[in-house]
């Protein structure tokens, strides 16, 4: 397997009044293609910052991130935008669906931005909704869906364009335990069946039991990189 993501001595500092906060401190890790990986740690440990940097929506203060062979620090804003459009899928803690679009239209959105034809968009969006088990709710708007259903739609939206990497920042934070477990299982299933690389962050210990690789962060530093041998290959 080859590296999809390579985080090399990355730091991210934010100015705060007259001092600065080190959200990420000299972090290094690599993620191989097709991995299912959890970033764990308490609040403020730097999980979201790390995901934002890997998702190319933030820039490191120092160090570099190589994604799918591309040094992201060298890309222009326009190229970064195109890079995210093609290579990355996002799942957000608060779902972040477009409220005036139906579930299917939300899933179509990344394809719309890519310029895919209407027929193909519809077809691929329905396939994605089918794969997350919510095709029957395709014509419903987000406000008519439960939290679990909304997050499934969000997952469908993240995978519909077959990105190299799916990033999910605390995707279960707004779900109950049952729905949270189901969502992680769903993402793992998509990882195995479609071969997509998933990286998600969580501070919920129970969700990590079936996660083959866990990277623990504390105070912005990688403190543990653990592999569960028995679940690595599903």
């Amino acid at each position: 397997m080859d590296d999809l993501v390579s985080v090399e001595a990355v730091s991210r500092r934010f100015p705060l009044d007259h001092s600065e906060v080190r959200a990420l401190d000299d972090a290094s890790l690599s993620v191989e293609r097709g991995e299912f990986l959890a970033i764990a740690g308490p609040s403020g440990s730097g999980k979201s910052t790390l995901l934002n940097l890997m998702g190319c929506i933030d820039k490191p203060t120092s160090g570099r991130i190589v994604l799918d062979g591309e040094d992201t620090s060298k890309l222009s804003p326009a190229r970064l935008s195109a890079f995210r459009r093609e290579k990355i899928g996002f799942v957000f803690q608060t779902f972040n669906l477009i409220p005036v679009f139906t579930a299917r239209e939300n899933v179509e959105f990344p394809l719309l931005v890519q310029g895919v034809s209407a027929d193909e968009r519809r077809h691929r969006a329905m396939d994605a909704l089918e794969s997350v088990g919510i095709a029957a709710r395709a014509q419903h708007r987000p406000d008519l869906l439960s939290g679990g259903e909304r997050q499934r739609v969000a997952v469908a939206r993240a995978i519909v364009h077959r990105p190299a990497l799916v990033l999910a920042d605390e995707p279960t934070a707004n779900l109950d335990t049952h729905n949270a477990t189901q969502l992680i299982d769903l993402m793992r299933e998509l990882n195995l069946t479609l071969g997509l690389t998933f990286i998600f962050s969580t501070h919920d210990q129970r969700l990590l039991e079936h996660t083959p690789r866990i990277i623990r962060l504390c105070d912005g530093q990688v403190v543990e990189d653990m592999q569960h041998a028995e679940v690595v290959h599903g």
Partner: protein
Amino acid sequence: MAKFLLLAFRNIFRNRRRTLMTLLMVGGGVTGLLLAGGYFAFMTHGLREDTIRNGLGHLQIFTAEHFRRDEIRVLDTGIENWRQVAATVRTAPHVHGVAPRIEFYGMVSNGQKSSIFMGSAVDPDAERSLGFSTFLTAGKDLDGDQGSDVEALIGAGLAKSMNVKVGDGLTLFAVTSDGALNGVDVQIAGIVESGVAELDARYLRITLPSAQRLLQSDRITNLVVGLDDTANTDAVYNELIPRLSGLPQRMTVKKWIDLATYYKQVHNLFNGIFLFMGVIVFFMVLMSSVNTLLMAMFERTREIGTMLAMGTPRAWIILLLMAEATLLGVLGAAGGLAAGNLLGVLLNASGLHLPPPPGYTVSVPFRVLHVPAMMVSSSILVIVSLALASILPAVRASRLQIVEALAHV
């Protein structure tokens, strides 16, 4: 692109109350412009046709020297063979009729009191055939019979200042072409009121033969040409120029607009007021919409951040917000057009009259014309205002820092 426009359209109705307020403001602006502009159009259209039908005609023909004439001996530069000129003009298409005139000045006396008058000598039959009307308040109009050679119509103000009435005799004095002072006796056949007080205080009308006897000349000062439609004025003007160039005397043709000084002043005044109103509506829509659209953008910060995170080009965000504002403008304009036209119909049906304007003695009916060009320009004005108002919020939205936008609560 259709999906993108659908997104813009649906976004308009996310906050219905705010959208309704914006639509009311935009629609109100269009309605106001339509009503005011429709009223101005009615006034200027009415004034134009009144000006033409009150005797100005659509075109007037003078000799080329007329405008360099001696105001006392007006016929020195008059048209000599005017019947030939009139016959030439009548052969042009769209010409409804031609009326000879002598416009002159003189003194009028009733034996006790004298006054300056502004005289107009006409062929009554020719005037009537052109539909030129006289507003009689007493007596009767001049007719083309022999007897009317000694009759006159005088303005209500002049009659009042001279203390004369219908049936009274007057003596008219004027300078002949030879420079001598000549006089004729006339009898007042009727009293007229144009609605313009200054004109009524000096106006006197006699027949052409009376004036030619008074001025000792067969010439006339001008020919008034009436057309079948005001819209044909330019076409007939262009037709007449070459036709008249072959005549022995050099002629000048004037369009009604060149002679209607008062009409032009009123038209310019209304245009100025309408422009001022348009500027006010433009800034009203612009200023209030900037605030509304900024609020809408602020509420959707996280959503915009999400779209940017998914790789949506920043230009798309600008276009989306501008499309929303433009669609809002289109809806507001459509509502304003409907309301403005409906109110116009209701106001026209109400038979409302406004008090006489300064210098006038009769009240003015309140009518609103439905002018397509005004509907288009008012709509474009508010749509452009909203599109411009959206630029600032749209650019701000496109420049959002994604991480900060996603964390927005």
